[in-house]
């Protein structure tokens, strides 16, 4: 899940790179472009953060390719996985948002966008979009909402979620710091915006240390009722 599927053989071990006989190469429509996305929901805010590295195999294609896309004034989506599918999927979502706006004379709410994305993804159940999506935004009551998806459209509302190549490293840390899991006798204070932003920065710095596909820069989109604010923080470039 973290490294390209082609690097692993059938028995789960890394494939050895020496001559084993004639090998048939088949065109694969998928590629893995790396990247990590993270979203956190607070009382009256939501954060969506992603790194900006675009890689493939051993190379880096770009150091400035953020994975957060603004959908409406109250919703941002983070897509990581195969960049080609990310671009097409965001185009389709934006087109559907426009159609909705023109038919119903109002913007789609975060919950509605999440439900719509679920049906868009499931429509390609037999040739899926290789994208891990996380939507962050404000719900109708102004509270923060995070919706996390799997590549075929299963989704649910969460308080925090990490997706992408370093997700397995970040999620346990978030469970502990935001969810207070496995902590005894600790005072569970609600998360403030400043603390959440600082936590996200720390967490990405740690991810960049240990995951080769995460790094270069971090872009945080902060969604509050005033609108969407962006912050860019440099990360390791090696």
């Amino acid at each position, binding site marked *: *899940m973290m490294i*390209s*599927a082609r690097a692993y053989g059938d028995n789960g071990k890394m494939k050895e790179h020496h001559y084993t006989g004639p090998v048939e190469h088949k065109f*694969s*429509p*998928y590629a*893995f472009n790396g990247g990590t996305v993270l979203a956190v929901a607070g009382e009256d805010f939501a954060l969506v953060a992603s790194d900006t590295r675009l890689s493939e195999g051993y190379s880096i294609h770009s150091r400035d390719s953020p994975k957060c896309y603004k959908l409406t004034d109250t919703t941002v989506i983070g897509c990581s996985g195969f960049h080609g599918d990310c671009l097409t999927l965001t185009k389709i979502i934006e087109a*559907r948002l426009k*159609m909705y706006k023109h*038919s119903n004379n109002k913007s789609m709410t975060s919950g509605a966008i999440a439900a719509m994305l*679920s*049906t868009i*993804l*499931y*429509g*390609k*159940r*037999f*040739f*899926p979009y*290789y994208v891990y999506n996380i939507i962050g935004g404000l719900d109708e009551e102004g509270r923060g909402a995070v919706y*996390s998806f*799997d*590549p*075929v*459209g*299963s*989704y*649910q509302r*969460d308080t925090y979620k990490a997706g992408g190549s370093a997700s*397995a490293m970040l999620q346990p840390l978030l469970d502990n710091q935001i969810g207070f899991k496995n902590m005894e006798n600790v005072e569970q204070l609600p998360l403030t915006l400043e603390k959440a932003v600082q936590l996200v920065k720390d967490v990405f710095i740690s991810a960049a240390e240990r995951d080769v596909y995460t790094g270069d820069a971090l872009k945080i989109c902060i969604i509050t009722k005033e609108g969407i604010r962006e912050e860019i923080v440099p990360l390791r470039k090696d």
Partner: protein
Amino acid sequence: MALQDVCGFLETLDDISPCTYLPNEMGYMWRTPFEFDGDSAFHFLFPPQQCSRKNRAPTLFSSTFSSLSPHQQPFQLSHGTTTLGFIFQDGVIAAADTRASCKGLICCPISQKIMPIHSHLVVNTSGSGADCMLWERILTREMRLYQLRHRKRLSVNGAAKLLSMMLHPFKGTDVCVAATLCGWDGEETQETLQSCMEIADVKEAVEQDSNVSAISDESAQGSVKMASINEQDEISKDTQALNPTVSNQNTKNALSTFGERSGPRVCYVCSDGLQLKGEIISVGSGSPYAYAVLDDGWRWGMTVDEAVALAREAVFRATHWDAYSGNNVDLFHITAHGWRRRDREDLKEEYYREREREKKKIKEREKERQKREGDELVEGEGDIYSVHCG
């Protein structure tokens, strides 16, 4: 969503393209749940090399999808779970764990596997997460349409048949849905409830032994349920004989809804096409452990508390032994009045509580043993004491 379909309201560009309405045998325009040439909510897109197949005339039972060879997907979908459902005299209990795993990683520790469809039907899902979620939505839509068209709720068996038919075209593909439909059939009038209770009381008092044999038969064959329905028939005849005026009316009400009995029902539907009816159904990687606990403790005449405790215990044991099940327990109780949800319970604490209870028991046993040994010593020594006591 359902109302929009019934009104034929065209919203997006998708709906304007010509749609195919297939008439069924009643000459009635029943819109098939999905048309392959795509205008309903689910037109499935195929990978390029399969284009030629799209031009074949779509039928409800065509297996266009099974010949699709999916591209090597670089990700795994979520599987692995424990869900269970059983009926008893006071309704249906549906319970499940909340862990969604994905090939070794827990994608979500708090997923919801039991989803209500309408006020009297709840579905336990297991298999691939996305498939279950989306097919449950399709089922909800179709059941709502049925209810609007026929002014009657579809029974649990009917819902199972509907879901099975909808999944049939996908047999052979990697759609993986194993759903247990748990619900209460029939009108929820006071009389129905009363008659069911009457039937249940008599049944409990008299038919305990035959029930036990019915269960063991069922577990052997895996599908028999007719035994209990026949018993119900006999008993209703008995009660009619005893109280002709009152019960007659009651049982008539109980036997309404298209000639089906009302009462608790549990049905299993699988994307392979398997459909089972029964009294106890458990699905998933943790189901063998759950069955062991359920078979031991299940009786038709259980009280609600006993049934809830049994379900909880079964899921707890399954989560203890199965790696792919865990985290919390969700529990729903469905009666003639509808479903009620019990608070989600974290099982991590339960394990430690049980350890504490065991420790306490061991300590008590130690104390007793010491006391006994102490008494024996005392009796052995002092003849004075024995004279006194004697």
